[in-house]
């Protein structure tokens, strides 16, 4: 730890020294000229000296420092035409760069793609992948629903536990150890329909970035990875309508200017209807009124007060509703659950070198399960609610040194398992009550180019967490009053990313990152489901701590047309939480009594080859890995593989642009079968045969593999109208991949014999899909 402080000190000194150099600054926003959307991660550089370059930050702002003189500044961004600017730099200058979508000039678009690919070699980040939403829309998906999180599962180092589930596991971390942000708001539940579909409507999204290793210091609160999703800002030039009709859902997005070039809005909604269609068939039947549907709604407005001040207000609201109605017995079950988020953001430029983002964020996830029969009813409620305030500052010291620092405060309210029941003459509640806590953090990171060969991204994140009453101590039985401080934790997380150029097109990168997590999702399910509960760190439940080491070799071939990488990682995790093996998922006043605590470790090697330019694009990723956990009270304190421990995991994603109208895609996945706990014995008790289980996760299902295909046909372009048909086949060769194993006892009374048998249950066979998408604009 002492060494890391020493390095920080040296870097700070270097930063101060660099202040002494006299440079002028070109700065501004990079935006899409057609929609006014800010572009994140655009390259801005001096064509004659590629070392003088920078990228736009998360909010589209760039700042490039150069000595006085004449420059040819180029801006490039994936999917857009390059823009070259002649700049006679005599004083600090603001230039907002407007890039044209690159549909006309293929060569410059390819050049932009290659620039993007070049980051694979020159960037400091290890294990960071930016997903192209346009490309995602071409990929074959389950029932035609474009899904960001399922696409993430196709990257090396990322696995899923069960078919169709949008829950994912990064480099051996748990599903709750991914920081999933939608416009900076944490999304606690990412799945609709038990996770078969993600809560993110791709039509409303601008960008998605996955960080699976070397997490920069501006991110915290989770142990394993970051998925940073940004919503579109809304078109500030023209009105635009996008809509899609699919097999199970339809969606509509409307965006346009409120005040042209100054303010815009976007609203986007999606709803399923497949079971609405069967409602007429249920009329007069036993289960009349039974239904399930989900919907989500995204909206955003923004206002540019000046070149220095912009304000954004965005929100998300989504719900899954399941209703089971048994009319004859007046019995009803109602299960609504979902997320709500709201983000108010203010971007302010103090100078052309100092950029500030301030956000006030609200997010809420709640799960309710209610049942009623005439006058008797009960309701079970679990939820998380956060109020969050954060400030992030980017200080572009010079082209060699970029500082980022900020702070974050979150007030958490967690409600695990609140139960109430009402009936004739009684109104009852359990003793479960919400828990409250304060989480704060401060961070500093420095992206420093030490030489043309060496570059580092070094950071430090300090966090504190205070558990507040009411709470009854399990250690000394002390009862804490509401808002009384129970326990405070402090943690320091150093982060170091390092890159060394090893040749014209190759580099070595390494990273060490410490991480801390104070909220935990505890699950007794084999995957992750919406009823899983989030719990707080307390005096009894310690914060999770993690450390990850990554080392990678990155090389591009054929003029940056092909990106390749080999990355190795090793990760250790402390204070991991599981339910006891006898936990039945019931409702308990004191859920902490049901936990067991242990540790985890994971290591693996990831191979990645990607081609991002030309008619034929795609990637192949392969991971060989091992992921284990160890708990005192599980498996006799021996290490065991997790359910998502897949020694071999292969994904192949191919896309072929047949013509301007036709596009074909294919996805093939192969992975080791999911681990499960097998039945070892049967025994007789209570007058029947019963199952006794062997060691935890000591058996595996057969290997999983699947091929998905899709074909997109774009209708002839008209002035204001575009449309396309997407035809898809999920599981094209109808592989019967088992989702789970079912045990049953077959009794042959005539023969006086019985046999316990196992069968594998497959949920997803070959599933064709078709969807129609269209867009209109008033250009």
């Amino acid at each position, binding site marked *: 730890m002492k060494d890391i402080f020493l390095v920080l000190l040296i870097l700070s000194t270097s930063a101060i020294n660099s202040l002494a150099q006299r440079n002028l600054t070109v700065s501004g926003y990079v935006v899409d000229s057609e929609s006014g959307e800010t572009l994140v991660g655009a390259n801005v550089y001096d064509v004659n000296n590629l070392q003088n370059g920078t990228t736009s930050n998360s909010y589209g702002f760039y700042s490039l420092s150069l000595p006085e003189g004449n420059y040819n500044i180029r801006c490039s961004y994936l999917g857009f035409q390059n823009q070259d600017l002649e700049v006679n730099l005599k004083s600090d200058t603001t230039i907002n760069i407007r890039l044209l979508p690159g549909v006309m000039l293929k060569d410059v678009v390819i050049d932009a793609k290659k620039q993007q690919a070049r980051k694979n070699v020159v960037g400091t980040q290890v294990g960071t992948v930016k997903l192209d939403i346009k490309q995602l829309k071409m990929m074959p998906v389950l029932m035609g629903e474009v899904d960001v999180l399922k696409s993430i599962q196709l990257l090396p180092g990322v696995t899923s536990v069960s078919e169709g589930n949008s829950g994912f596991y990064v480099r051996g971390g748990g599903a709750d150890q991914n920081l999933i942000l939608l416009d900076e708001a944490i999304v606690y539940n990412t799945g609709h329909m038990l996770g078969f579909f993600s809560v993110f409507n791709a039509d409303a999204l601008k960008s998605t970035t996955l960080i699976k290793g070397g997490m920069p210091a501006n991110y915290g609160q989770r142990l394993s990875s970051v998925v940073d999703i940004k919503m579109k800002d809304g078109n500030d030039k023209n009105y635009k309508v996008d809509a899609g009709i699919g097999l199970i859902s339809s969606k509509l997005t409307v965006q346009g200017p409120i005040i042209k070039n100054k303010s815009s809005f976007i609203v986007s909604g999606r709803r399923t209807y497949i079971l609405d269609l069967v409602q007429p068939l249920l009329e007069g039947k036993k289960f009349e009124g039974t239904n399930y549907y989900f919907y989500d709604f995204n909206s955003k407005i923004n206002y540019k007060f000046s070149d220095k001040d912009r304000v954004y207000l965005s929100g998300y609201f989504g719900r899954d509703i399941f209703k089971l109605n048994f009319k004859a017995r007046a019995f009803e079950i109602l299960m609504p659950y979902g997320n709500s988020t709201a983000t108010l953001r203010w971007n302010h430029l103090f100078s052309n070198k100092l950029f500030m983002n301030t956000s006030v964020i609200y997010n809420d996830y709640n799960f309710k399960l209610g049942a009623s029969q005439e006058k008797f009813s009960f309701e079970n409620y679990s939820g998380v609610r956060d109020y969050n305030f954060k400030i992030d500052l980017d200080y572009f010291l010079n082209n060699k040194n970029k500082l980022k620092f900020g702070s974050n405060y979150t007030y958490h309210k967690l409600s695990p398992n609140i139960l109430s029941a009402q009936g004739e003459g009684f109104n009852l509640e359990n003793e479960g009550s919400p828990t409250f806590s304060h989480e704060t953090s401060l961070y500093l990171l420095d992206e420093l180019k030490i030489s043309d060969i060496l570059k580092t991204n070094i950071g430090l994140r300090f966090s504190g967490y205070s558990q507040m009453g009411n709470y009854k101590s399990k250690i000394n039985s002390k009862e804490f009053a509401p808002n009384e401080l129970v326990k405070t934790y402090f943690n320091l997380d150093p982060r170091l990313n390092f890159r060394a150029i090893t040749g014209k097109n190759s580099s070595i990168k390494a990273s060490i990152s410490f991480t801390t997590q104070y909220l935990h999702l505890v699950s007794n399910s084999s*995957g992750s489901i919406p009823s899983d509960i989030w719990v707080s760190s307390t005096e009894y439940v310690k914060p999770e701590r993690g450390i990850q080491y990554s080392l990678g070799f990155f090389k591009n071939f054929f003029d940056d047309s092909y990106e390749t990488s080999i990355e190795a990682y090793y990760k250790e995790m402390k204070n991991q939480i599981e339910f006891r093996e006898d936990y039945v998922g019931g409702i308990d*006043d004191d859920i902490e009594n049901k936990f067991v605590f242990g540790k985890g470790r994971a290591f693996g090697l990831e191979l990645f080859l990607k081609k991002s330019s030309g008619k034929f694009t795609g990637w192949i990723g392969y991971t060989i890995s091992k992921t284990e956990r160890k708990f005192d009270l599980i498996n006799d304190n021996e290490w065991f593989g997790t359910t998502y421990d897949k020694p071999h995991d292969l994904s192949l994603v191919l896309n072929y642009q047949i013509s301007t109208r036709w596009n074909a895609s294919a996805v093939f996945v192969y992975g080791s079968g999911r681990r499960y706990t*097998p039945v070892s014995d049967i025994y007789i*008790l209570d007058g029947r045969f019963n199952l006794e289980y062997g060691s935890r996760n000591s058996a595996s299902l057969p290997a999983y593999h699947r091929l998905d295909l899709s074909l997109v046909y774009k209708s002839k372009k008209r002035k204001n109208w575009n449309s396309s048909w997407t035809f898809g086949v999920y599981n094209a060769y109808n592989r019967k991949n088992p989702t*789970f194993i079912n045990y049953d006892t077959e009794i042959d009374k005539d023969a006086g014999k019985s046999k*316990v048998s196992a069968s594998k249950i497959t949920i997803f066979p070959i599933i064709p899909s078709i969807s129609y998408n269209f867009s209109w604009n008033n250009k």
Partner: protein
Amino acid sequence: MKNYIFIIFILFLGFSFYSCEEEFAPSDVKAKQEYVVEGHLEASRLGIPTFVILSKSTSYFSTLDSALVENLYIDDADVFVFDGQNNVELSYVCAKDLSFPLLLKLYGVLGNKIFNSKFCAYLDLDNKLNIAEEREYKLHIEHEGNIIESTTTIPKNVMLDSLYFKEPPGDPIDSAAMMWVRFSDPKDESDFYRYFVIENFKKVYSYNSLFDDMIVDGKTIDLPFRKPVDPRSSDFNRDIGFTYLRGDTLQFKLCALDKAHYGFWESFQFSNNQGPFTSYIRAKDNIEGGIGIWGGYACKVVDVIVPMK
């Protein structure tokens, strides 16, 4: 329970499009062949003798015919129960050697299998044990050099105030009634309950009939008590659901049990399935040197005929 609601959810959704089931041969897993204890003590007016059924588990892959099942039972163990004063050895007795009144008493707990002549168990035939509330009982078994031990308590009895019937909820149905029970839960203690229903001296039901006092702590309360029948079994009458047929003779038994005993049945009833989303659940036994349960009950018993309308 939430996970089980999810299973309904899944049945309704996922399987509505498709599901395919194929036989699966799991890789060989070494059988543990553990001792299995099913031991019962009961303080109630029924005078049910304390008994222990001792057997061994067998490989999951076994084909179970009557000979193999018979061989699972252990008839040569030494079984002792210590009640704090007396250390009583239980006698190994088979059904054919028991008196009919005694068989009837055991029937109330064990059901039909007691009438199988091959059924055998270790019994406190002469009622030497002092069976009383708020008392601890130690079980000690020796077999082929192996020691199996456990401890349980019989807790304080339940305050069952009254039992009555009302119209079932929903559409009127003349032939059935819903059972309601008024009982009082002691304040500031964690209390655990299980109930049994014997219908017309023929069927014993206790499926999913456990509950605790999480929301009724310290209260006198009237609650509906559904018939504890497994909805997947052939005994389940879909027309009346979990209500009771009018005119039937019922023996209703509401028992208090200690936390470990409750914990076993709670986990046991969910331990036989590993669904698409639920993890496996291992029954939480209270046996050292084996698996199963050694459990005490304090029970109130009510005999009642479901009134005609």
